[in-house]
C-alpha cells in the first residue's frame, strides 16, 4: 500500500510558483538594467509593463525549468535526510539549477538560452531564486513537522 502525501505536491507547486515569480522579476531586472545603461534610464511605467510581460510570458518557459529543478532537489531531500537543513536545501536547489543551465545551454541552439544568465551576477541571482523556492519548500515541510 503506497500512501500519497498530496501536500508534498502542493508545497512543491507553491515553491515552483515562488521561484518562477522571482526568476521573472530577476530576468526583467537584468534586461531592463542593460537597456537603461544604453538609453540613460527606463521610465517606471515601462519597468512595470516589462515585469508584467515577463510574468505572463517568460514564466511559461521558466516554470517547467523550475518544476524540474525543485522536483529533483525535493527527491534528493526525500532520500537524503542529511540535506534537510535550510542552508543545505538552499544550496541543493542552486546546484541543481546550475547543472540544468549547463545542460540547457549545451542542448539549445543558442549559446545562452536565458538572457539574465549571460553574466555571473545574473547566474547567481537566478540560483538565489531557486534557493528561495527550496527554502520555502523545506520551511513548509518543517512547519508541518514532516521533516524534523
Amino acid at each position, binding site marked *: 500500500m503506497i500512501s500519497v502525501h498530496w501536500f508534498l505536491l502542493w508545497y512543491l507547486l507553491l515553491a515552483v510558483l515562488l521561484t518562477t515569480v522571482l526568476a521573472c522579476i530577476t530576468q526583467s531586472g537584468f534586461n531592463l538594467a542593460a537597456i537603461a545603461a544604453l538609453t540613460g534610464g527606463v521610465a517606471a511605467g515601462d519597468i512595470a509593463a516589462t515585469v508584467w510581460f515577463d510574468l505572463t510570458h*517568460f514564466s511559461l518557459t521558466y516554470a517547467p525549468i523550475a518544476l524540474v529543478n525543485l522536483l529533483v532537489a525535493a527527491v534528493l531531500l526525500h532520500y537524503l535526510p542529511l540535506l534537510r537543513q535550510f542552508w543545505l536545501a538552499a544550496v541543493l536547489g542552486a546546484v541543481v539549477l546550475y547543472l540544468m543551465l549547463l545542460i540547457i545551454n549545451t542542448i539549445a541552439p543558442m549559446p545562452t538560452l536565458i538572457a539574465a544568465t549571460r553574466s555571473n551576477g545574473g547566474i547567481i541571482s537566478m540560483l538565489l531564486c531557486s534557493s528561495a523556492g527550496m527554502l520555502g519548500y523545506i520551511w513548509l515541510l518543517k512547519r508541518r513537522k514532516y521533516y524534523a
Partner: protein
Amino acid sequence: MPRFAILLALLFAVPAVNAAASYQLKVLADNLSYPWALEFLPDGDMLLTERGGILKRLAADGSERFSIQPALPDLLQAAQAGLQDVILTPGFTDNNQILLSYACGTLKANNTCLASAELTASGLGNIKRIFQAQPLKSGAAHFGGRIAFLPDNSLVLTLGDGFDYREQAQNPANHLGKIVRLNVDGSVPPDNPFADRPGYAAEIYSLGHRNVQGIFYDAATQTLYSHEHGPRGGDELNIINDGANYGWPVATKGIDYTGARVSPYIHFTGMQAPVWGWTPSIAPAGMTLYRGELFPQWQGNIFVAALAAKSVYRLDIENHQVVHEQVLFSELKQRIRDVRSGPDGALYLLTDSDKGQLIKVTPAN
C-alpha cells in the same frame, strides 16, 4: 443559380491556376551540404559555398567543375559558424579576385573574417585574410557574413551581435552588431562615417544590428537594402544609411526565445525604424533585387529567402516603401538559405539542409 456559382468558381479559380503555373522549378544540383551563397561568373558558371567550408564551381546546368576546401585562415566550423558568402570583386575580369566571408577562430574566441583569393582553373590561389571583426567572442552564433559592393568599389560586410553580446551592437568601439565598410584590400575608406571619431571603430558603416544575413545595393535607386533576423518576431528590412543606428537591442518588435522582453521600446529617438518587418519571424537569410527580363512583372522587386517560413518573400517596392508582399515557393517545404537573381533573368534558390539543393526558377512558358 448553378451558372452563377460556376462563374464565381471560375473567377476565383483562374488566378490560382495562373499563379501556380507562372513559374517552373528545376533542380540544378542536389546533395549540397548546407549551401550558403551563390555568385555568378561572367562565363555563366556559378560559385557556390557550403557552410562546412566547401567552395564549388558549377556550370550553368549545375554540373560540377570543381569542389574544393579552400585553406581559409582559422576557419571555424560549428553550429552557425563556417564558410559564408562569396562575391566577385569589381576588378574580377582583370585579376580573378573574389572575396569570401567566414567564421574564424575557436569556439571560445571567434568572429567573422573576410578573405580575398584568386580564382584559378582548378580552385583558389593566393588566399589572404584581409579583415577580422573585433573583439573575438565565445559561441558559434550570429556571424552575419553577407557582402555587397557599393558604386565606389568599396564593400560592406554584415556582422552579427554574437547572440550573447547583444548590447555590444550599440557600442561604437567594436564590430559586434555592425555593418562595416572596407576597401577591397581590407583597408578602411577615409570617408567612413566614423573614420576620425575617437572611441569609434573606423570600419563601422552602421550600427545597432542583430544578425544581418541579406544585403544588396540597388544602383537604380541608389539604395542599400539589408534585412536582419529578429529574435522571436522583429525580423526587419532596413534601408542602410551611413552612420545610422538601427536600434538593436533598444528598439525591437521581437522578444527573446524564452518569451522575455528584450526591451520596452519598439521605436527610440535617434534610431532608424525598419521599412518592413516580420512578426512572427520568418528568419530572413539572404536576398536579391530582381532586374532580369524573364519575369517582367517582378522587375525591381526584392526577394527575401526565409529559413523558418520555408519560402521566399517577394516585396514590391515603391518610393522605398513595401506596397505588396507575396509568399512564393512554399510548395518546396524547404528552408531557403539564399535567393539570387541570375544574369540570365532566372531566379536561383538555395535550400538549407544536409541535402540542400540549387533550384532554378524560370517562367512556366
